[in-house]
């Protein structure tokens, strides 16, 4: 990743490769004047204050509110509730377990179908075939669209009576026609395919950059040793892309936890499309605002998301910490 950053920098202003980053720095701090310290304090202070108030404080408040009962009106009405909200969502809240299952299914689908598809496209497009740029542009176009818009566009494709899919299947206008986004037995699959349309292009793009970064002599060496294309890819090229692989794993997990926009546009995350993120919002905005229950759901989402986040951060910053 930082190697990509390096390449945008003109040669003459680049830090020489492998130069000790912290060279003169400990000395420099002592040379800072009072005014410099003020400037630095503001440079760090303002962004940090924003980040603390609008990201970290709300995150902690979510945890706090999940142990209370509150209708969201008067701050004085907040009552402690112990683990009652967690008990409620796990035992008496019907959409909770379906939502967990759907989030898992979404993750599996992205991990087993969308991500490998993106990798396959990248590998095929990396071999200098004719029209590679055109193919890349086509596969990448959906990445530019919002997931909300993707929901609308696929709705036009999936509708029961006038959708293209039912026409292609020959079921349009017959009783067998399927309302792909409306039928609770199939709509999660239809939504995941729409999400794949975007995710695969994104993965393709990242892997194309990753493949360009693999040292070609590695491939030559493997070829000389008699490895075929498939062996070369899985034994040499793929392991060499380790940093990108980590990013892809994290993106795939986080996208599956964030799957909100698509399902919310389709039917607000109900009737077969229950997702944890959508349930959080249903409990915050509906008629009876139940902030405690919504927050408990948010904390479940938070705890699950912390797994890939911590994994990613320890990979990314672990090295620098030791250095």
């Amino acid at each position, binding site marked *: 990743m930082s190697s*990509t*950053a390096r390449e945008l920098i003109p040669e003459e*202003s*680049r830090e*020489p490769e492998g*130069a000790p980053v912290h060279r*003169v*720095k400990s000395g*420099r*701090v002592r040379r*800072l004047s009072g005014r410099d310290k003020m*400037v630095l304090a503001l*440079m*760090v202070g*303002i*962004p*940090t204050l*924003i*980040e603390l108030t*609008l*990201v970290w404080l*709300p*995150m902690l*408040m*979510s945890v706090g509110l999940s142990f209370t009962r509150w209708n*969201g009106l008067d701050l004085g009405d907040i009552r402690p509730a112990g683990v009652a909200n967690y008990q409620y969502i796990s035992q008496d809240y019907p959409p909770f377990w379906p939502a967990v299952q759907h989030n898992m299914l979404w993750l599996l689908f992205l991990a087993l179908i969308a991500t490998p598809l993106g990798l396959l*496209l990248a590998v095929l497009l990396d*071999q200098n*075939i004719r029209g590679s740029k055109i193919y890349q542009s*086509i596969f990448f176009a959906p990445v*530019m*669209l919002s*997931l*909300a*818009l993707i929901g*609308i*566009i696929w709705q*036009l*494709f999936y509708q029961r009576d*006038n959708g293209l899919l039912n026409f292609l299947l020959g079921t349009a206008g017959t009783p067998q026609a399927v309302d792909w986004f409306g039928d609770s037995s199939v709509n999660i699959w239809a939504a995941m395919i729409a999400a794949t349309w975007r995710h695969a292009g994104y993965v393709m793009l*990242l892997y194309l*950059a990753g493949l*360009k*970064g693999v040292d*070609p002599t590695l491939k030559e060496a493997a070829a000389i040793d008699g490895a075929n294309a498939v062996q070369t890819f899985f034994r040499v090229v793929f392991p060499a892309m380790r940093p990108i692989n980590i*990013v892809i794993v994290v993106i795939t997990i*986080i*996208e599956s936890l964030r799957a909100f926009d698509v399902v*919310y546009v389709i039917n607000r995350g109900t009737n077969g499309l229950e997702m944890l993120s959508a349930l959080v*919002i249903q409990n*915050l905005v509906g008629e009876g605002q139940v902030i405690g229950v919504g*927050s408990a759901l948010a*904390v479940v989402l*938070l705890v699950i*998301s912390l797994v890939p*986040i911590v994994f*990613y*951060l320890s990979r990314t*910053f672990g090295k620098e*910490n030791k250095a």
Partner: protein
Amino acid sequence: MSTTTARSGGTRTAALRSGSRPRRHYGTHIFLTVMAVMWLIPLGWSLFTALRPVASTNEHGYFSVAGDFNFDNFTQAWTQGGFATYFMNSLIITVPAVLLTLFLASLMAFAVSRVSWKFNITLLIMFTAGNLLPPQVLAAPLFEMAKHFEVPYSFSDSGNMLNTYIVVIAVNIAVQMGFCTFVLSNYMKALSSDLTEAALVDGAGIWRQYREIILPLCRPAFAALGTLQIIFIYNEYFWPLLFIQSGNRLPITTAINNLQGQFLNNYNLLAAGAVITVIPTLVIYLLLQRQFVAGLTLGSSKG
């Protein structure tokens, strides 16, 4: 695709290939063509439907090519759907959010990458982690904070921060800043430390080092990140949905959801609305594709 990598990689592979025996890629081409056609169908179908007046589709059915093709749906959707307002709202939110995000992130990135002190990594981790969280985790407290933050009615007609652009802009900045700080700090770390050393000898303070030496060198990174952030914030669906209640203040990405109700069962109009919404992103894509791609691969950490 990222410009510089492509340049160096391309020549190398080309040299390699000329040496090896020519390979035919018929299978690959067939597969890619099939995939590409499938990839284009949803957008193509929207465009096709949008170009046909509802009278033709009613007469001949949606699955036909008979009848007229014109732009009537677009003009009708534009006026009936209130697109001018929505686009304006998108602009009001996106422009300040992108500029402030880049500015604040560059301050932070400069401090953590060019000056060494104890909490560098801690702060960087804190910023990056904030960017990766699902936004719904923060929704309830942010909503309540905005609701209980009372301001004069002359400032906001809700008497608090709900239903204002400011809160949407501020939250967008807070969540995007982490990613930008991460990318910019990587970029600044890769700039030679001799540059600021020399300035230091000349007696330049921190601000001048930032403003006159580092910032101008970061132009390529700003171009890439700026393009990326324009797309990200323009495409942001959730924060306006949470904070903004009056329909006429919604940005386009959040407002398209209401079109489904507004253009009840007139799929031609809905398709035209969808196509109109795609146009700005498509224009940016065609003009700044290189920047956008560079931005995505530069960080590769965006979840």
